């Protein structure tokens, strides 16, 4: 019991321990695990294939060339893959509520968020990192950008902040399911929809739509705003220059909102009874 208490005090160590337990379970079927990781890599690479196909038909899309769009794809896909691996499990909260398995989690001495996130943690999700990482590397090598230390430093920063923004959205989407148990189908448009959206330059989308994903759901700060600085492009919304560097603040705000929503949801939860 004392050991469990210490474990609860160290959330990251607990997370790693639980994830490792699930990985060992999955590793009992090594062939299946490798096949699934490969398949996951291919599925998540399909979006990159689509971008490649688009550029066989036109040299520029909405004013952006292939290597620039692939840079956006790489940063978006890598951020999303990291957040999905770590917190993607929260999208199944509604299922846990419906099946009553959340009740079992509440009596254990570990945060329910960690338990939901690590439940069924599958090493195949790591497959998502492969196309994202490869394409980002290729895009960086081919980018026609005068690299400065500032631009170079902003790239890992955008991946980190993007992952934090997506992480907040995963948890927010999960928290909504405390109240609306069947809303999973709709919260996907925030997470998977956000991942799709940020692969393309915002010049593709209608102006009002871009305002929405800048000021309401701040997906534009995942990679678009910092990318404008890295690629040295003007902002179609003409936001002040500071917006290019606002991603860390936005990420902190999204994560704070997600934490508040999750706690409120957990307090609201009254089990289903029997």
């Amino acid at each position, binding site marked *: 019991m004392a050991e469990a208490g210490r474990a609860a005090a160290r959330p990251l160590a607990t997370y790693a321990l639980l994830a490792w337990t699930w990985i060992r379970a999955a590793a009992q*079927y090594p062939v*299946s695990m490798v*096949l*699934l990781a490969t*398949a*996951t890599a*291919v*599925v998540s690479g*399909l*979006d990159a*294939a*689509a971008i490649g*196909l*688009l550029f*066989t*038909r*036109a*040299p*520029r*899309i*909405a004013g952006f060339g292939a290597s620039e769009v692939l840079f956006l794809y790489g940063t978006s896909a890598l951020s999303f893959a990291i957040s999905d691996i770590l917190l993607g499990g929260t999208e199944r909260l509604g299922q846990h509520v419906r099946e009553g398995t959340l009740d079992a989690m509440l009596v254990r001495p570990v945060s329910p968020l960690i338990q939901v996130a690590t439940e069924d943690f599958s090493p195949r999700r790591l497959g998502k990192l492969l196309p994202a990482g490869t394409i980002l590397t290729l895009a960086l090598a081919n980018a026609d950008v005068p690299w400065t230390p500032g631009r170079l430093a902003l790239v890992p920063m955008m991946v980190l902040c993007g992952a934090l923004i997506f992480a907040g959205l995963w948890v927010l989407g999960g928290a909504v399911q405390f109240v609306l148990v*069947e*809303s*999973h*189908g*709709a919260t*996907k*448009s925030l997470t*998977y*929809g956000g991942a*799709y*959206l940020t692969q*393309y330059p915002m*010049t*593709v*989308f*209608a102006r009002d*739509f871009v305002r929405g994903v800048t000021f309401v759901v701040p997906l534009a700060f995942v990679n678009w705003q910092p990318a404008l600085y890295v690629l040295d492009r003007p902002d179609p919304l003409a936001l002040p220059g500071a917006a290019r560097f606002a991603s860390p603040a936005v990420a902190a705000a999204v994560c704070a909102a997600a934490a508040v929503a999750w706690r409120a949801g957990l307090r609201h939860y009254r089990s289903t009874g029997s």
Partner: protein
Amino acid sequence: MGVLPWVWWYGFRRHTAYAAASLAEALTNTGFGFMRAYVLIALWHERPVLGGYDVNDAVTFCFLTQALIGPLQIFGGMDLAQRIRTGDVAIDLHRPVGLQGWWLADDLGRATGSLVLRGGPPLLAGALVFPLSWPGPAGLAAFAASVLLGALVGFGLRYVVALGMFWLHDDRGLNAVMLVMSLFFSGMTLPLVVFPGRLGDVAHALPWAAQLQVPADVFLGRHTGTDLLGALAFQAAWAAALLAAGALLTRAARRKLVIHGG
């Protein structure tokens, strides 16, 4: 009346029971419809008559395919696979109706329910924002026939994959491969008319084209007269081939399955 219409009806009832969940899915389908539409508009801005579509055709294609994701179950999967894993399929095999016919009726019931709940919202929302290309009454009738054939092709593919469970004991690997093929070659990732050269020719000949691309082309009025009959015949041929393969696999599975009493 035979038993199969009842199976269809219960499939329909089961899949319309949770309307809120279906509408939530429809909301996401609609959101993706808008994002895909803007990407296609940007491409057609550069290439206004690409593949014989104009920009309205491309946008219509996008919302129409988003509306058909649910009914044609582009993301794959069938409840039958779980029943094979748990052994409940033994009960299905004891029924005095064929396994394939039973599940086809059930799946068409699911497709109808999904069409009712998830078909409308993406098309409606798309039509409010963009000028879509609508077919006339004759085109709509041809489209209905084409969607039915597409549903048969989709069922044929997923049934064969589900039966793979008898031999592989795990359907996730096969499902993952099917998902890749289905997303890419049905026209879901990009309309097949965008695919260049040989890739386009191959994609147009595969069963996934019969599932989604052909119904969309019929909706857009790209097939008329004998060409329309040819397109429907192409779908019917794939449906017949896949259903025949499913029937053969069902017979083989019957011999393969051993049920221990207890």
